[in-house]
């Protein structure tokens, strides 16, 4: 701690930070552009000039850039000094020289940091009367607009995209006032995190393309705090709605989870909510003919499910409340998680490890702090993208260490990078195919899951002699094994990552053994991050019985042992083999399916009930670390759709708080779920919090084309939020903070006003509740799995591949995501391709069963193995098996092709 004086007032600050950050932490207004809370300082924009004095007697002082000056003890500065103010006014004047001043037609208008800073710096009248410099814009893909004329050259975009997120195709080009930020040629931005440019850019150079197509001003959007349902990380988001359609998603800060950044699936994968295909009415389906049914009819049909034996198949993409309500309806023993057998088993194993006191499940922030990481099997960029982005930060811990040893402050971003160059903290990747993190990896070993698990056991055995010995390992791996073991052993905060997506539970066991060996040797709780694929995989995993396998349910259905089945928001054709599901569903007497969108399963339903989408209901989800988070309702669903839990509840009554409370009381591990509910008592005079901003416009005119009378605002009986502008906005309580706004701060940069300190926790907010208590004393090591049997001769051993755009069921129904999706592909080695006479892009028949995929020859795939990407369930993953025979096919599978595929090792002949 240090004391500094700003304009005569004394503040306690952290001397490890710079003056700008500390001024903002103190709530002072000081304009800036190039500094970013997560990316530190480079001193490019010169906007945060302040006057610094040597001592109390120094009356002249010297201009310094606050972002480049340490907040050292005793520093005396002035923000208000006339010379400093003048400098800041000059800077904003020069920044605005070529800016087009097109705020009225600019998507950024109203939440533009440049607008805010221009006002704050006092630049009102333009004196520049010469020609402006202009640029040409580029096509950057379906997500992002490019309008370079608005650029103020703060370098934030490339610092984020390249330095922070590891992109390579967005660069600063040309020089002087022609400096240009773009690609070398037009084309899709390759990074999976490109959408953050929209929020990183302080003005409207990079804007949200899908949002532009149905644009509304920030203040006209109705919004509420939400949680992304794209994967199991559970990033916090703020979706915005107007005229009944969801318009966009922006990041909502959570210090432990997503911080300031989302992935592109999360940001752009929402518009299935607006889809015309949404289910809107309860229907009865007989022989493929569906008939809308009235309330009395569906009430009667639902009544059938309240007695007798009913199978309830839950879903990892449904909320805790819906899964819990279904479980209550059908009883524990008839409730199934709805995951495939292998995934259910793997999830249960993960939950077992989640109770083990030897381990800790790291948050995204914890992952960023890791100083040696081993990833076993998972393709994180495609299954839990935000973790991949966090790992890109973890490898920089080495740089920060080096900087500390040279007395370079960690916030001196460029200096730290220049010092460290390519020195990184170790990141070892063990995977079935080359992943997108390879460029920052210290080791990347590519092999079959069985071999990778064995390498894992070998590492564990190096770390502790109590760990079981691996089976014989190819000698070319021994050096890597020793190296990785040594790196993990030397680390202060080692981290082991595995998960269910690599499709082999042996990898999870091996990961646990390594973590246990580390725990044994260091005596410290070890970070073990076990990744699952869907938003509520962990939630439903906790609710479902360990032994309730989907195959057993399907068998009971097939054998007609149980005649009534409810399927909750789940397409069973993604969970088991095609024929098995078809046979099972065909034998059911009454199949009730509730879902948002039509699927292969809803087509088979006898009764089909529409449910609300994530933005249309309040719900809780449990992320990969066991963190339960509350997502509020943003908009009303105007159709007959209801939250699934309500369909299952008695007389369709009750509110979400009641079911959350009941779940907390009754369900094991969910005791802390009700902590998530905001305390109504804390609100002023019991007034609700408005979802609409105080500037929300057009309320009286919005439906004037239909009716000139302004209808009563819809009432929200369920939550502390109101579908209205009225009420007391959440100025400080961050639990219910939708869009951050503070006087003079209309952009997302207003978030610093809600943080304890810059990058700290939100004031009064909480980061979610960690549900699972670690009560089990140290369990023992897992035994080493026996090596798998060899497959058929000539068959390829299969690893499942994932794509950020396509592997997630719901986001794959969104327009912008569909523009990035590719055909299902089979990744094979150049050697196998040659042997099979395949070239890049050929159509390939799988096992001769009619499944087709595109050949994707990848230089880093091991001969004899294949990485299969199923597309949007274009291929049934459960029909493939562990080994695969492929041949060239004349038929084409899909017109998407794979040219949009972004992988690092696409094979090009001649290279």
């Amino acid at each position: 701690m240090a004391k500094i004086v700003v304009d005569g007032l004394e503040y306690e600050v952290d001397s490890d930070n710079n003056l700008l950050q500390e001024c903002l932490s103190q709530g002072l207004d000081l304009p800036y552009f190039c500094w970013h809370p997560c990316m530190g300082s480079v001193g490019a924009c010169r906007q945060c000039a302040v006057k610094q004095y040597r001592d109390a007697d120094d009356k002249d002082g010297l201009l310094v850039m606050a972002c480049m000056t340490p907040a050292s003890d005793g520093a005396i500065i002035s923000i208000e000094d006339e010379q400093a103010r003048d400098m800041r006014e000059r800077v904003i004047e020069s920044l605005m020289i070529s800016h087009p001043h097109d705020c009225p037609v600019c998507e950024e208008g109203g939440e533009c940091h440049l607008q805010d800073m221009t006002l704050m710096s006092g630049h009102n009248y333009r004196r520049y009367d010469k020609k402006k410099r202009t640029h040409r814009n580029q096509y950057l893909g379906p997500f992002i607009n490019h309008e370079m004329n608005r650029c103020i050259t703060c370098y934030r975009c490339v610092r984020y995209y390249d330095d922070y997120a590891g992109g390579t195709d967005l660069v600063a080009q040309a020089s002087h006032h022609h400096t240009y930020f773009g690609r070398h040629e037009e084309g899709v931005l390759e990074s999976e995190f490109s959408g953050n440019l929209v929020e990183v850019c302080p003005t409207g150079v990079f804007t949200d393309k899908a949002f532009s197509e149905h644009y509304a001003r920030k203040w006209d959007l109705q919004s509420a705090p939400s949680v992304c349902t794209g994967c199991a990380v559970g990033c916090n988001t703020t979706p915005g709605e107007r005229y009944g359609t969801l318009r966009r998603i922006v990041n909502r800060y959570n210090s432990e989870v997503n911080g300031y950044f989302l992935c592109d699936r999360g940001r752009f994968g929402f518009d299935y909510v607006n889809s015309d295909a949404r289910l809107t009415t309860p229907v009865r389906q007989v022989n493929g003919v569906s008939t809308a049914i009235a309330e009395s009819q569906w009430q009667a049909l639902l009544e059938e499910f309240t007695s007798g034996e009913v199978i309830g198949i839950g879903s990892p993409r449904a909320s805790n409340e819906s899964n819990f309500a279904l479980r209550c309806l059908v009883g524990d023993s008839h409730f199934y998680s709805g995951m495939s057998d292998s995934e259910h088993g793997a999830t249960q194993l993960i939950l077992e490890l989640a109770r083990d006191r030897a381990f800790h499940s790291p948050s995204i922030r914890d992952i960023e702090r890791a100083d040696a990481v081993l990833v076993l099997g998972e393709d994180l960029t495609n299954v839990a993208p935000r973790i991949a982005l966090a790992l890109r930060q973890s490898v920089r811990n080495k740089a920060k260490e080096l900087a500390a040893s040279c007395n370079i402050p960690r916030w001196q971003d460029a200096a730290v990078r220049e010092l460290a160059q390519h020195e990184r903290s170790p990141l070892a990747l063990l995977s079935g195919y080359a992943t997108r993190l390879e460029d920052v990896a210290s080791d990347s070993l590519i092999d079959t899951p069985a071999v990778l698990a064995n390498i894992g056991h070998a590492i564990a055995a190096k770390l502790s002699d109590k760990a079981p010995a691996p089976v014989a390992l190819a000698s070319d791996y021994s050096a890597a094994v020793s190296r990785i073991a040594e790196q993990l052993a030397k680390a202060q905060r080692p981290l082991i990552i595995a998960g269910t997506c690599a499709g082999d539970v042996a990898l999870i066991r091996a990961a646990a053994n390594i973590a246990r060996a580390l725990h044994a040797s260091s005596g410290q709780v070890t970070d073990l991050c076990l990744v699952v694929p869907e938003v509520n995989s962990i939630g439903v995993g906790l609710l479902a019985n360990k032994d309730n396998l989907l195959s057993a349910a399907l068998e009971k259905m097939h054998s007609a042992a149980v005649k009534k089945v409810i399927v909750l928001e789940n397409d069973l054709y993604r969970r088991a083999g095609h024929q098995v599901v078809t046979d099972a569903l065909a034998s059911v007497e009454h199949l009730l399916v509730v879902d948002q969108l039509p699927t292969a399963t809803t087509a088979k339903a006898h009764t089909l009930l529409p449910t609300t989408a994530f933005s249309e209901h309040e719900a809780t989800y449990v992320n990969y670390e066991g963190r339960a988070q509350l997502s509020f309702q943003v908009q009303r669903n105007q159709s007959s759709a209801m939250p699934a839990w309500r369909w299952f509840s008695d007389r369709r009554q009750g509110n979400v708080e009641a079911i959350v409370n009941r779940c907390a009381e009754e369900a094991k591990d969910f005791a802390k779920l009700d902590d998530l509910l905001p305390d109504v008592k804390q609100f002023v005079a019991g007034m609700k919090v408005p979802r609409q901003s105080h500037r929300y416009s057009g309320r009286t005119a919005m439906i004037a084309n239909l009716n000139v009378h302004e209808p009563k605002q819809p009432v929200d009986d369920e939550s502390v939020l109101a579908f209205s502008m009225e009420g007391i906005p959440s100025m400080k309580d961050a639990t219910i903070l939708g869009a951050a706004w503070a006087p003079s701060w209309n952009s997302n940069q207003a978030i610093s006003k809600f943080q304890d300190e810059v990058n700290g926790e939100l004031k009064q907010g909480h980061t979610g509740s960690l549900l699972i208590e670690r009560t089990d004393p140290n369990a023992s090591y897992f035994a080493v799995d026996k090596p798998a049997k060899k497959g058929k001769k000539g068959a390829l051993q299969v690893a499942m591949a994932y794509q950020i755009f396509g592997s997630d069921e719901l986001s794959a129904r969104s327009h912008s995501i569909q523009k990035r999706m590719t055909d299902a592909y089979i990744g094979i080695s150049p050697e196998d391709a040659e042997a099979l006479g395949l070239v890049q892009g050929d159509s390939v028949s799988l096992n001769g069963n009619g499944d087709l995929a595109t050949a994707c020859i990848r230089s880093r795939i091991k001969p004899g193995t294949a990485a299969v990407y199923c597309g949007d369930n274009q291929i049934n993953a459960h029909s493939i098996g562990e080994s695969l025979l492929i041949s060239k096919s004349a038929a084409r599978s899909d017109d998407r092709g794979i040219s949009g595929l972004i992988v690092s090792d696409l094979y090009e002949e001649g290279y």
Partner: protein
Amino acid sequence: MVTKPLTKNIDMTRGPLAIAAYESADGYQSVQVIAGGMSPEAVLQLVRDSGLKGRGGAGFPTGLKWSFVPQGENSPAQKYLVVNADEMEPGTFKDRLLMEGDPHLLIEGMIIASYAIQASMAYLFLRGEYTASERALKKAIGEAYDKGLLGKNILGTGFNLDIVLHTSAGRYICGEETALLNALEGKRATPRAKPPFPQVSGLWGKPTIVNNVETICNLPGILTYGVDWYHGLTKGSDHGSKLFGVSGKVKTPGCWELPLGTPIRELLEDYAGGMRDGLQLKGFLPGGGSTDFMLPEHLDLHLDYAEIASVGSRLATGTMIILDNKTCPVGMVGNLMKFFAHESCGFCTPCRDGLPWVDEIFNEFESGRGNEKDLQILHEHVDYLGPGRTFCALAPGATAPLGSGLKYFAEDFQRHIDEKCCPYKH
């Protein structure tokens, strides 16, 4: 007694001396001194004692700069010497003379500097357009390797040194030492924040000394002939000799090695032959495009760092640009502003967006559309682009001729406004 250690071997009517001829003219004697057992610390002390100041423009004491390089067991083993041969200062052509005229002198100096800071790798960052220098240096480096003066275990000292000749893709900003390092690493040539200084974290994050060509060329003499000899070269308070150049409308523009402390009048009248007939001296930039104007009344000052600084300018590269009474000073300053605006790297706001505005205003003055408001804006930019406000010294350098031009030639600026044209053209 050698009086012109920098240029004694240079005769532009012939090619540079080959290594044998160079050696017989006391060449590489300093390397023999080192081979004779002189420690790096002793070399460093000798250079400190010599009082040599950097000849690239800033005039920072060379020995002091070297002493910031961390030495000893805990310091990074790899250190680098980088020679800044990206000579792009307007009006400056002194390093070119040295490299084209006597490349072995530079290589000899590089061996000394590398030895003193214990760098086993030295980079010569050469301006891309200097193709003749490139040819001469390539040949000389090859000869030095052949003689065992470069490479492993030089002259049995156990000291290793490799020299890499890097021809730059150009840009004025590469003369800024940290932008040069970025360029050498293959990155955008934008300056780095200081601190950390390159001596601590420089090329590829390792301790690095960046010295100008002429600075390095001073070293062989100091080691070969000694500090006392070196101190005897000067006529003023700074030590050694220096290359001085004169360009502009003088009778014999050129570049000469003279003792520091030589009167400006002597350089201008005796060496450059005085003004061309019919022209009078109106002012001059003493050390390249980024120095403040001086006036005829300053001619009796001496070419000495402190003395030039006393009238608000800088000796800098020591290469004068002459302004005569028939050339428009507004046009001259405008031409420089165009250069600086174009050469701004684009990193920090005042330089990137301020200089083009200044340039635009000069265009308007030139075409008769100058006005009082714009004149006021020019004055404001002198402060706005000044030291401490921008990220590096490029823009403050540009304000030197701008600020002094506005001060000394105010009448000319006013006439452009009043007469709505350039008075020198009509």
